[in-house]
């Protein structure tokens, strides 16, 4: 005979404001098999948990139903409390009276009745619960970091410095990400390359880090502690061991007019190229889309000039399989291009540029060697206009969020411009100045007060070209929306920061979720900012939302600590919520008839064939068997099984039917 305890929580007022908790507890006390029933203000508090523990001890409870919030919130809390009182934790169930009832209904009798029903079905279910034990799995102590921007670099170094192995993959020919493109960085104006390059080199030389550039994730299988990843190393058409990085090939390549990605299209690069002088690794790749040999079948000049015969035209992509225990995703972000803005000319004016293009113009390694010259004719602009919130904070453009970094980099840009062009005039159109951060507001004030940048609060409705000038039509909302027209030589749009192309596909490969803007979703916006909903996969940097460098680095170190915590254990425990094929006494052995439909249905390849043999070793029957290490408890096989021979532990057919019958008041 079951002895079940029911514990109804008020959740402060979250539940009790609409549900009559005392009545729910009282009704439950009358159910068959309920030995104890009580309501309490905060079940999750220490006294609340003690209430459960002492009831288990005193009444000898065989099952517990906690009627409170979502099991996602507190199931572990209550199961632990039960375990401490000597009850198998899987004999504890939660009825969700908060998310499923009090929060979504008005106060009233019907609401209390629904709460009662929710308790009822779990009381009946728990009667069929069985003691279960956690599954132990080993941990592979190697991390896979995807994306070699500053976030991926920092995460890799931190993990590697705890003594664990790291595999870092970067899709481009060099690591560095967007930070390598920046000229100077706010709020200190130190040179981006100068602070970044040492870390890039450290990554390349670290004994614990394996770096694969020009590589992408092909597929991922497995689960926390035990992932199997396939990495596609795209062919660089190069034998990296032979290449000395002399660069001769890049100077001799005849296909020179390819817009340089690194310079945001403001300069050109050859078909065999190193993206920038400080690249890591400093060895070229051949861009097969543009290379004359691959497109027209003739050329191979690089091969002829290479002093070490390192060019390999017939090299193929290589798939590398690795086993890792955790992943850090640090694939960063992108920005909208100027062609996203019809009101600013659909990208047809060469002197309307993006913030990243301005970074390249201001950078000593850029196409103008750091002189601010406009793309159309190379003249130094005498008047320059910066537009904040280009696309951001604009629901009509589908980007209602604030891109966060642009207010700061615009102040930086205007400052750099004033430092370089003393006679120049600069204007910033802004909505609000968002400069929250250490030394950030001071930085913006410096731009306004010391460097004389004209800040105008208002939006720009239109930009058009006339007589070689860009006419910028805006309004000054601090002067009663006074129309303003500026004849500018160059305009910089602080275009919205957005998720990468292909972010969804990557998220799907990783089985992690993403938000409506395709940024990867953290597990909890406040308390789990670097975790994803998939155990063992962590986030760092701007792939989660637009972030500046200090934030990206902090996140990366946070994610690295999470990985290190995981790797500090030799074994992990997993919930025993997995599928099992039933076993019966001979001669049936199991109701499984060995059709093995489930084998093809299982997305995790967790089902094997088991042969049952008699003493003489003769085969009696083949039945399905679930490998508990691989099973994820998704239940697909249960739905496929024609003879209902498979059950998910803790969610058996019997338990489900019981719940339904309880709901229909069949008891």
């Amino acid at each position, binding site marked *: 005979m079951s002895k079940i305890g029911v514990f109804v929580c008020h959740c402060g007022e979250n539940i009790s404001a609409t549900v009559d908790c005392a009545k729910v507890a009282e009704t439950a006390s009358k159910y068959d098999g309920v030995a104890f029933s009580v309501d309490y203000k905060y079940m999750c508090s220490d006294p609340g948990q003690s209430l459960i523990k002492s009831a288990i001890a005193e009444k000898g409870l065989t099952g517990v139903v906690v009627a409170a919030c979502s099991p996602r919130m507190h199931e572990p809390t209550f199961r632990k409390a039960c375990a401490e009182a000597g009850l198998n934790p899987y004999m504890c169930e939660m009825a969700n009276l908060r998310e499923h009832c009090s929060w979504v209904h008005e106060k009233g009798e019907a609401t209390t009745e629904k709460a009662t029903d929710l308790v009822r079905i779990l009381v009946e279910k728990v009667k069929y619960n069985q003691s279960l034990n956690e599954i132990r799995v080993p941990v592979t102590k190697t991390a896979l970091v995807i994306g070699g921007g500053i976030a991926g670099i920092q995460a890799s170094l931190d993990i590697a410095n705890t003594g664990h192995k790291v595999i870092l993959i970067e899709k481009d020919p060099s690591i560095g990400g967007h930070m390598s493109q920046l000229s100077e960085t706010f709020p200190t104006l130190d040179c981006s390359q100068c602070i970044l390059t040492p870390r890039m080199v450290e990554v390349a030389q670290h004994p614990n880090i394996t770096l694969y550039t020009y590589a992408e994730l092909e597929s991922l299988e497995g689960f926390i502690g035990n992932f199997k990843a396939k990495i596609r190393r795209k062919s660089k058409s190069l034998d990296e061991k032979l290449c000395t990085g002399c660069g001769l090939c890049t100077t001799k390549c005849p296909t020179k007019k390819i817009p340089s990605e690194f310079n945001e299209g403001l300069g050109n690069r050859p078909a065999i190229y190193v993206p920038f002088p400080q690249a890591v690794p400093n060895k070229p790749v051949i861009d097969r889309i543009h290379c004359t040999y691959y497109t027209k079948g003739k050329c191979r000049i690089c091969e002829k000039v290479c002093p070490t015969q390192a060019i390999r035209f017939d090299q193929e992509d290589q798939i590398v399989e690795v086993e890792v225990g955790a992943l850090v995703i640090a694939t960063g972000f992108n920005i909208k291009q100027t062609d996203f803005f*019809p*009101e600013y000319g*659909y990208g047809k004016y060469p002197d309307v540029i993006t913030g990243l293009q301005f970074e390249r113009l201001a950078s000593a390694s850029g196409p103008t060697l750091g002189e601010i010259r406009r793309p159309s004719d190379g003249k130094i602009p005498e008047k320059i206009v910066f537009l904040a919130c280009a696309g951001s904070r604009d629901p009509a453009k589908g980007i209602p969020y604030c891109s966060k970094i642009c207010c700061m980099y615009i102040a930086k840009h205007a400052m750099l411009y004033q430092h370089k062009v003393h006679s120049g005039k600069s204007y910033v159109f802004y909505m609000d100045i968002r400069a929250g951060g250490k030394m950030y507001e001071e930085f913006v004030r410096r731009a306004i007060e010391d460097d004389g940048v004209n800040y105008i609060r208002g939006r720009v409705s239109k930009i*058009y070209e*006339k007589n070689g000038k860009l*006419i910028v039509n805006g309004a000054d909302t601090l002067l009663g929306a006074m129309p303003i027209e500026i004849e500018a030589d160059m305009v910089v749009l602080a275009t919205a920061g957005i998720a990468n192309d292909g972010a969804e596909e990557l998220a799907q490969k990783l089985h992690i979720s993403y938000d409506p803007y395709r940024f990867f979703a953290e597990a909890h916006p406040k308390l789990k900012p670097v975790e994803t909903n998939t155990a063992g996969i962590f986030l760092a940097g701007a792939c989660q939302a637009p972030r500046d460098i200090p934030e990206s680095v902090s996140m990366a170190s946070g994610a690295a600590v999470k990985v290190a915590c995981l790797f500090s254990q030799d074994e992990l425990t997993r919930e025993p919520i997995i599928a099992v094929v039933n076993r019966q006494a001979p001669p049936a052995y199991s109701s499984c008839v060995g059709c093995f439909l489930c084998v093809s249905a299982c997305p995790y390849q967790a089902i094997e064939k088991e042969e049952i043999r008699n003493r003489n070793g003769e085969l009696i029957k083949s039945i399905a068997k679930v490998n508990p290490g691989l099973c994820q408890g998704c239940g697909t096989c249960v739905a496929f099984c024609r003879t209902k021979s498979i059950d998910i532990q803790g969610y058996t057919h019997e338990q489900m039917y019981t719940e339904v019958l309880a709901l229909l008041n069949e008891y």
Partner: protein
Amino acid sequence: MTLGFYPGCSLKGSSREYAESVLAVAKAFDVEIEEITDWNCCGATAAHNLNKELSLALPARILSLAEKQGLKEIVVPCAACYSRLTVTKHELSKDPLLKATVIEANGLDYSGSVSILNIIQMLDKYITPNLGGRVVKPFDHKVACYYGCLLVRPHEILKFDREEDPQSMDILMLKTGATPIDWAYKTECCGAGLSVSRTSSVGRLSGKIIEDAKDRGAEAVIVACPMCHSNLDMRRDAINTFLGEKVDIPVLYITQALGLALGIDRKKLGLQRHFVKVTV
């Protein structure tokens, strides 16, 4: 199929030549056109500034009459009327309560079944596909296609062309042999109803439009809205005062320009009715 025709007030008065040219072009291609009987004013700017229900009931009455007359599709050459009728159809389709109120006020059935074409859509549907070989006098001029405010806005409702840099008139004019110019004032406001109350404002706003067209070498401005036309044409004195020079670039309705290319008689297109002499 017969195409319904809602002229609206302007096309019966100050912009009679717009109506004349629409009908002349339609006739040249045997498009059967039937005016909506007993139509009323769409409410223009006044109604929707005063009373929402009234501003919807007036256009709804027109659509009800069209339904009653068995019309499936109507052309509304005036950009402002087109905007009001389309907005009404949209508002009533998403608010059954409002629809019921309006039906009761009008005492006429309304199902929302009539599709509404602006002049460009009408030409693209019935005229340009059959244009081949019919352009006898190519309109060989540099033209500034001026869309104004209402032909493309509000974009969420009209879903016509690109709101910031529309192209449909330019594409159409290309087919008449014209060379549309790239210019900056395609969708700037001409001053609209201030024509009467503050003519000097119209002089300034329309002046900038004419100035940009002139600076970029346009020989004619092409419009699809009676209000725009009257401001750019009839208010040319105010414009010239603002500009401090005499600019005599003519302003043509798109149907007039098309009509000329088709070789239709200038009088039938009403070209003599303009204030700025049509020299092209």
